[in-house]
């Protein structure tokens, strides 16, 4: 990677513990602007925790997290100012495993809400943008449906449009197809693929869909027990992993 450009996101010696359980140990890695990184590894290896710390839903126990060079969280340093954290966080968007749509708002209402409330966008502009985003995820005709009237795959696509509406430069996707019936997984992954080809967002993708992890990524990171075991180009990690642990993990998920 180019050392001159500032990373989009950077973990420096980050440790995360819950009580005595050390979930992430001295983790350091970075993501370049527009880079797509797949995070794979067995359940409990700390993948979700990484994404949640980037979204400031969890705080590191020690170490620093930076977004475009600006501090987002500091486990040991001085307490950061709320407005600085908010400014750093504004670059980041997230799509959750459980969608987390707002049940009292229609699909288009879900997408319009943050631009209007947070960015102060005028209602007509927000509606036009939201409609365009729903069109883009293939749900233009469902704009007025409520989440409870949509299938899981449709809900997740609304959630993607909602996250996009805030124009994040880093998109976090945490097992976004794990709560879906198998026949609905494809439509969601297709949307993510087209986003990847049409935008320059950095993406950090946690998934159990190994084909997707491989296709979407510029780089794959394999984690186990809170540590990065190996990282590299998708073809290299999937075809010729350096570590025996990666090899056995890939064997177990391919069965």
């Amino acid at each position, binding site marked *: 990677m180019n050392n001159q450009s500032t990373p989009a996101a950077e973990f420096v010696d980050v440790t995360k513990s819950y009580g005595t359980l050390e979930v992430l140990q001295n983790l350091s890695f970075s993501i370049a602007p527009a880079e797509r990184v797949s995070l794979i590894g067995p359940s409990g290896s700390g993948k979700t925790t990484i994404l949640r710390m980037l*979204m*400031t*839903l969890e705080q590191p126990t020690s170490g620093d997290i930076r977004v475009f060079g600006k501090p987002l969280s500091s486990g040991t340093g001085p307490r950061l100012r709320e407005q600085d954290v*908010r400014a750093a*966080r*504004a670059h*980041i*968007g*997230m799509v*959750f495993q*459980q969608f*987390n*749509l*707002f*049940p*009292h708002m229609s699909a288009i209402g879900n997408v319009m*809400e*943050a631009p209007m*409330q*947070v960015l102060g966008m005028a209602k007509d502009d927000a509606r036009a943008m939201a409609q365009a985003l729903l069109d883009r995820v293939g749900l233009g005709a469902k704009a007025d449906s409520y989440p409870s009237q949509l299938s899981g795959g449709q809900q997740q696509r609304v959630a993607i449009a*909602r*996250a996009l509406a*805030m124009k994040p430069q880093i998109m976090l996707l945490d097992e976004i197809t794990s709560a879906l019936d198998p026949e609905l997984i494809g439509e969601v992954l297709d949307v993510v693929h087209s986003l990847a080809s049409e935008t320059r967002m950095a993406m950090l993708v946690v998934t159990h869909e190994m084909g997707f992890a491989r296709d979407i990524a510029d780089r794959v990171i394999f984690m186990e027990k809170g540590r990065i075991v190996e990282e590299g180009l998708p073809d290299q990690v999937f075809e010729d992993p350096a570590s025996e642990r990666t090899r056995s993990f890939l064997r177990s998920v391919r069965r």
Partner: protein
Amino acid sequence: MNFDLNSINVILPLLLQGLKVTVIASTGAVIVAIALGLLIAIVRRSAGRALRLAIDTVVTVVRSTPLLVQLYLLFYVLPLYGPAMSPMTTGILGLGIHYCAYLSEVFRAGIDAVPKGQWEAAIALQFNRLQTWRRLIIPQVVRIVLPQVGNYFISIYKHSSLLATITVVEILGTTLNYAGETFRYFEAFTLLGIIYFIVGFSLSRTVGYLERRLA
């Protein structure tokens, strides 16, 4: 004793006038109870240990003492040390404070029933705390607690009859005044019961309807 049908012509307009006062007092009280109850539930969530203990103590005291005693304290004792308020204002505040203690618990449970993922989505979309409460959490809490709040409104409506004891001329006060002057207790209280029932029954049907619709 015979029921004097002709007296209905006199009593009914009087009672409807009293009913108006009852409705105003109940509505005012439920607004006070909702506002205070919601405030307590929200403040309590982010309060430190000391403030939380203070809030819980007050709520417990209010819940464990009779409404009638609270009304007397507000009406006869408070003016000795503070501002004198009209009977109506005292009544609305008294009822509202009494019921806010119950509604704060209802709201607390309602807030806890909003999934954690909603708060996390709010952070991921850069909402601040106020926006999160106002646009995301409270609208969902309202849907969750509406039937319970409706039932408490019916309680408030029935208990507003206690305001007669602090000289508010609501529907019971009107009835007592009329019956005291004319000795037509039979007619007056029969009619009073019927009106209380019609309004109370309609309210509970409305709450039941809301409950079914929101389920």
